[in-house]
Structures are given as C-alpha cells and as structure tokens.
C-alpha cells in the first residue's frame, strides 16, 4: 500500500506538487489569519514554510535541491524550477503599468549598477578580511555576494578552487534566503510600497529568487516592477564579474 501511494506520487510528480503547494498555502493563510490577525502576509509564511521544508529535505537527503531531492516531492522541483518560475514572472508583466515602468527606467539602471558593485565590494572585503589574498578567490567570493549564479560563473571563468566556488555559491544562496525573509520585515522602513521603489529594489537586491519571494511576501502588486530590473542583474553580474571587477581586484591586490 505505501509503495503504491509512493508510486502514484512519483509518477504524477507535478500534480502532486500542486496538491502539496496548495496545502502549504492553505495552512499558511490559516496561520496568518488565526495567529497574526492578518498582520503577517500568508505568502510570507508560506515562503518561510517552503524554506523550512527545503532545510528538512536537505538534511534528510544530503542533496542540494531541498525538498525536491525526495523522489515523492520531485514535482516541486519542476513546479518551482527555473522554467515555470520564469514563465510565471513573465506573466506578471501583464499587470505592469507601462507608463510608470518607463518613468522609473533610469532609476532601475542606476539601481542595477549599484546592486552589482556594492555587494561585490562587501563580499571582496570580507574575503580579504578572512585572509584570502589572491585576486581570483577574492573576485569569486565577491561575485558570490552578487548572486549565486554570478559567483560560480565568475569562478569558473577565472579558474577558482572548488572550495572557494562552494563558498561563493553558499554566500549567494544565503543572500537569496535573507532577501526572501528580510524584505517583508524591512519594507516599511525602506519605503518599499510603490512601483518606483520596487524597481530600485529589484535592481539593488538582484537575486531573482530573493526578489521574487521577497516581493510576493511583501506586496504582490510590486512583483512585476521588481522582477523587471532584477532579471537583468545576473546577466550584468556575469558580464562584469570576470572582466572589469576582476581586473580592478587584481590591480589592487597584485
């Protein structure tokens, strides 16, 4: 009997994922209403529950894909994977106020530039403080602070050691999780309540998963504006990481 249930869940992976995510959403909305009187967004709770499940999944399997590493939950990997995530992000653009998005365009570009350079400086500074002195390692860890994709892409291009690459990826993933969980907490203090600031936020925070989760947990109407700028972030990071930023670090560190 248990094997038969397992067989169905594995065979119908995506369908099972709909049911699991539906249950998580239902539970989170109920918790939001009963325990916090609606003060904490149901989606914020759902994302934290999702991260918690990912932690449990990672502990149980020792894999890198959280809950999706368990065969019965493999459908979660498809539902929350890059393909459907990007598909849904593009769909949210249908709700964009094109006029306001164009007005805030320049702001988005400035935010993108700052959002690439500032995290890199922090990451590279921390790497130096912890005794990494070669330009390749410092650049790779700095790039990891941009996003968890920029880190390994930069590291691979420069030939960083695998330990440094792992550190860069972990930094990027930690950043994404922090952005997801932290955004609803600080939104009020940083004025994140309108399309303009959402575009600045997307460019500055960068990490698409972090921005997608953070805005969903804060205010869904801001999602497309943040995503619009955030989706350029990784590409720009991968462009300047192994080139301009590396040359800058090499000139300083020698």
């Amino acid at each position, binding site marked *: 009997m248990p094997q038969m249930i397992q067989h169905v869940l594995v065979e119908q992976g995506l369908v099972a994922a709909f049911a699991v*995510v539906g249950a998580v959403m239902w539970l989170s909305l109920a918790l939001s209403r009963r325990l916090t009187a609606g003060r904490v967004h149901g989606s914020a709770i759902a*994302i934290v*529950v*999702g*991260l918690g499940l*990912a*932690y449990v*999944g*990672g502990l149980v399997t020792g894999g*890198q894909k*959280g809950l999706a590493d368990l065969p019965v939950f493999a459908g979660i990997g498809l*539902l*929350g*994977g890059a393909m*459907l*995530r990007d598909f849904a*992000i*593009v*769909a*949210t*653009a*249908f*709700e964009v*106020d*094109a006029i*306001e998005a164009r007005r805030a365009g320049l*702001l988005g570009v400035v935010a993108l530039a700052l959002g690439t350079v500032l*995290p890199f400086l*922090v990451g590279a500074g921390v*790497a130096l403080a912890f005794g990494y002195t070669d330009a390749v390692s410092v650049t790779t*860890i700095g790039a990891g*602070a941009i996003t968890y*994709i*920029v880190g390994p*892409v930069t590291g*691979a291009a420069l030939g960083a050691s695998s330990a440094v690459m792992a*550190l860069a990826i*972990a*930094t990027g*993933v*930690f*950043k*994404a999780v922090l952005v997801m969980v*932290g955004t609803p907490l600080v939104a009020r*203090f940083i004025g*994140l309540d309108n399309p303009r*600031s959402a575009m*600045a936020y997307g460019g500055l*925070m960068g990490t698409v*998963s972090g921005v997608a*989760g953070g805005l*969903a947990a804060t*205010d*869904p*109407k801001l*999602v*497309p504006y943040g995503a619009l700028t955030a989706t*350029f972030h990784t*590409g720009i990071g*991968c462009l300047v990481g192994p080139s301009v930023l590396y040359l800058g670090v090499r000139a300083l560190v020698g």
Partner: protein
Amino acid sequence: MTVFGVALLAVCTLVGVFIGDLLGVALGVKANVGGVGIAMMMLIAARVWLVRRGVLSHGIKLGIEFWATMYIPIVVAMAAQQNVVAAVRGGPVVLIAGLGAVSLCFACVALIGRLGGRRELPADEVAGIERGGYVIAGDTPPDLVVPAGSPAPAVADRAVPSVGGA
C-alpha cells in the same frame, strides 16, 4: 481561446530568453543576459498593441493571468528547493558577506526610492496597479466579484468564466 493567451506568453518567454542567450554570446558571457526582462517588455508591448487594436479578448487575458495568479504558489515551490542547508552551514564568511551585502542594499533602496521625491499617480494608473496586485496574489479583483443575488455580468467582465474557456 484561452490557449492563445498561454501561447502568447510562451512565445514572449521563448523569444526573450533566446535574445538573452544571443546577448550573452555577443558579450562573451556564459549566462543569459536579461532574457526574462526582455520577455516581460515584449509582453507589456503586446498588451498595449492588443488593447489599441481592441482585440484583447477575455480568453487571451485568462490564459496569461492564470499564470500570474499561480506566481506565489510557484515561488513557494521555488523556496522549497533552495539549498537552505548550505546557506545555514556557510560559516562566518558567508554570514558576514551575505548580511553585509543585503543590509547595504536595503539602505540604498531607502535612499534611491526617495530620489526625486514621491509622485502622486493618476487614479486610473493606481487602480490598474492595485488590480494587478490582486491577480498576482491569486485573487479575483474586488470590482469583478459578482455580488450575491445580482444578475451575472457579461462573461467578458468576469475573472473566471462559468463554462470552459472563452
């Protein structure tokens, strides 16, 4: 037809991601450069074009907005497959670099958001933005909810048609 909306969304996504890949190759980067953002701009342009020609049918809207309403569940599934264990066990470099980068960027959002001051948006734009929020939150916008007992509005005004697709 609902599938026209889904297909439009799919074509925008595919073309956008392809252009992003091309840009990556042109710039010599091993990554997609802004593919999803380009796809989003194409979809925004497509909507403007459809509205201007008066051919934005209920089916097209339903096909695209269904995926917008699925956005949060998909993000929850995304959260459930992050490598949280690695993030938690990262050690001091990961902790300090992550916290430092994120707090600095949050502070910048506060600064940049205030650049140029706050502008009041026209009422119709605000209404459009709020409506988008309801859709992305996975809800029916309040002006589209049918009050109990009142005659049902034309199918084209409803968020979810009673029978099949349009």
